[in-house]
């Protein structure tokens, strides 16, 4: 058996096996899940190192075969997926708020298996198969994580948003496959498509919708904050923070770099999308009052950087985007894990009720600090380097406005993490949390590992780039030297300014908010214009999903229903009415009157004789 199948089949089979295990068994489920994830990780490492032979299998008829290829990009992605799966499995070992353990691990393993499949698939149909297959587990993951109606509703929202955009992806794949004449991505990349004519542009746009929606970018992101409230921390750490970003950005890069040759217009579209995502989400994140919810908006916001990076279409930007993808998964998972720890230990995620936990939970606090610094782009952590690459790429395109937007996003990111960190780990500890202790080891280990990676990829930024990213972009002739290490650059200067500005803002906010760190964003939250905007956002006016469901779907379906009723009328009431008319006329005519009948007979006979009798 080809080793390439292990990361896919092992989690899937283990997941199915879990379903057979009784809920009552202790630790068996958890251990099985962790074991499968660990073995998968080993296999992934192996795959990255040896690049096993592609696997072909007859699949959908004879025309479309099931092909798995581990090229640099996909092997790298597979490694990331496996790593995060293992981390979350371990982390969830003693995490109570994850719903039924059996179903949690089932969902986790299935997600892992399908994500690995999507990463390894060379055939677009196979990729789509795994990609869309994730939908089911996305739904069950959210729906089963809490036993509330809100969870079900959010699960439905997540499912519908992703399913609709996946359908777009499906259509895009079919058109791409048709114009390329093949479904194999490696074949297409050998002979890339252009956006010259309508169909291919249409195809790319559909693929783009699928990819950015999976990555959780604006305007398809709205389920993520909801999920943050209605589902568990491990889920947030795993799916929206890690797996979805990895797959979405992976396929965006695939499509933009390997499948299509993009043009300037599309570049602008992508970059705008990235910038808008950054700003909109970070503005929302900034004013959040809930630990996970705040993080979830950041998860959206950070996607913007990746899209911006890939949208630059220059090697530096793309490398930055991909690097940011892996970095983001690392620190955002880590952050969600800290959120989970805090929630488990302190019993709440509301910022106003938390405070001063650093002493009680020093390891968690340290992990938080590292990850928060990384996400805020503070040197020398990994986030800094990837963001720098994205900035550089953006500047290279000449669109300074996007650079400024990204920097503004950076500023707000840092500001919001200052608020978050201050609220949770510093300041006065509330009365009820005197007894709070550090999280158990099984939760700390993955956090520490991820924090460690943040640091390692920061100081040793050349290693991930050299090992993973540069090979992934092998065709682009990147001057790898440019991609890592410290270069004397005006960007450092800018970043220092941003950091200073953020700190000042925080201090100003603290004083304005009466010294309460959780209110340190109120001066922006309740600023003129913004206040109204935020109020609207709270009412979900900007939520594409809610608006569509409330404003578009009912009238459209009602109109279609009316059309349906019209056709019903034409086949039911109309012929019935016509028949009734004739039948009624006949009933009135046949009134039993003998002279009428006699006249009819004689007149009929006369006409008959005149017409047929030859009586000219």
């Amino acid at each position, binding site marked *: 058996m080809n080793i390439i199948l292990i990361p896919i089949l092992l989690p899937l089979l283990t997941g199915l096996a879990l379903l057979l295990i009784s809920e009552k068994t202790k630790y068996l489920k958890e251990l099985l899940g962790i074991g499968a994830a660990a073995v998968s990780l080993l296999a992934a490492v192996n795959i990255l190192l040896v690049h096993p032979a592609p696997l072909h299998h007859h699949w959908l008829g004879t025309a479309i075969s099931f092909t798995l290829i581990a090229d640099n990009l996909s092997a790298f992605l597979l490694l990331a997926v496996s790593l995060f799966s293992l981390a979350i499995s371990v982390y969830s070992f003693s995490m109570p708020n994850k719903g039924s353990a059996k179903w949690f691990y089932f969902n986790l393993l299935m997600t892992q298996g399908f994500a690995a499949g999507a990463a390894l698939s060379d055939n677009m149909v196979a990729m789509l198969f795994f990609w869309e297959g994730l939908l089911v587990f996305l739904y069950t993951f959210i729906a089963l994580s809490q036993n509330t109606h809100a969870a079900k509703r959010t699960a439905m929202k997540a499912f519908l948003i992703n399913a609709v955009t996946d359908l777009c992806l499906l259509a895009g794949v079919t058109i791409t496959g048709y114009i390329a004449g093949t479904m194999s991505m490696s074949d297409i990349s050998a002979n890339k498509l252009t956006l010259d004519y309508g169909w291919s542009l249409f195809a790319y746009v559909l693929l783009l919708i699928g990819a950015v929606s999976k990555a959780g970018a604006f305007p398809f992101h709205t389920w993520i904050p909801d999920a943050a409230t209605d589902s568990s921390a491990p889920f947030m750490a795993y799916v929206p923070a890690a797996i979805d970003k990895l797959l979405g950005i992976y396929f965006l890069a695939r499509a933009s770099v390997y499948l299509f040759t993009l043009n300037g217009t599309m570049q602008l579209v992508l970059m705008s999308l990235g910038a808008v995502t950054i700003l909109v989400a970070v503005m929302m994140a900034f004013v959040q009052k809930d630990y996970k919810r705040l993080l979830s908006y950041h998860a959206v916001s950070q996607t913007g950087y990746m899209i911006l990076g890939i949208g630059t279409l220059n090697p530096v930007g793309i490398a930055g985007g991909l690097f940011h993808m892996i970095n983001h998964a690392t620190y955002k998972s880590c952050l969600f894990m800290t959120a989970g720890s805090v929630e488990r230990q302190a019993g709440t995620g509301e910022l106003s009720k938390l405070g001063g936990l650093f002493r009680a939970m020093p390891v968690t606090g340290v992990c938080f600090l590292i990850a928060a610094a990384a996400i805020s782009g503070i040197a020398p952590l990994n986030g800094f380097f990837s963001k720098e690459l994205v900035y550089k790429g953006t500047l290279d395109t000449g669109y300074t406005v996007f650079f400024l937007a990204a920097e503004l996003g950076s500023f707000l990111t840092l500001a919001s993490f200052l608020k978050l960190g201050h609220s949770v780990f510093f300041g006065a500890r509330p009365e009820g949390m005197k007894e709070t202790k550090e999280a158990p080891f099984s939760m700390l280990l993955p956090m520490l590992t991820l924090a460690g990676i943040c640091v390692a990829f920061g100081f040793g930024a050349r290693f991930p780039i050299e090992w993973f990213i540069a090979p992934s972009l092998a065709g682009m002739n990147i001057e790898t030297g440019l991609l890592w290490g410290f270069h004397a650059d005006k960007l450092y200067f800018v970043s220092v300014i941003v950091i200073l500005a953020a700190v000042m803002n925080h201090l100003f906010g603290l004083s304005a908010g009466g010294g309460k760190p959780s209110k340190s964003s109120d001066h922006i939250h309740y600023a003129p214009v913004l206040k109204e905007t935020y109020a609207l956002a709270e009412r979900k006016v900007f939520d594409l999903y809610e608006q569509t469901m409330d404003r578009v779907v009912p009238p459209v379906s009602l109109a279609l229903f009316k059309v349906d009723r019209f056709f019903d009328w034409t086949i039911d009431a109309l012929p019935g009415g016509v028949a009734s008319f004739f039948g009624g006329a006949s*009933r009135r005519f046949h009134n*039993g009157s003998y*002279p009428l009948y006699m*006249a009819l007979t004689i007149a009929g006979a006369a006409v008959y004789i005149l017409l047929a009798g030859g009586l000219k």
Partner: protein
Amino acid sequence: MSTFAMEWYLIAIIIFTGFYCMLASRSIVRQLIGLEIVSKAAMLSVISAGALTDNLVYAQALIITMIVIEVVVVAAGLALLVKNFRLHGSADIWKLDSLKG
């Protein structure tokens, strides 16, 4: 105009009279009388046609049969009339309009 045409012209008028009677009359007796008038005219047409083609014997044979039929038909009609009269106390066929729709 030949005699034949004249005969048939008058036959047509008699038939017209008979049908007019059936159309205009309410009384079942007059209906029967109209019917008789029409069948008389029909007999005349047969004998006239027989005479024209020198086939009188054959025509007579037909007419004898027709007379037998006529008697039975009239008897049946009158029987129905009487039965109707016993049932409804009237011989007005226009009042018979209970079957309709």
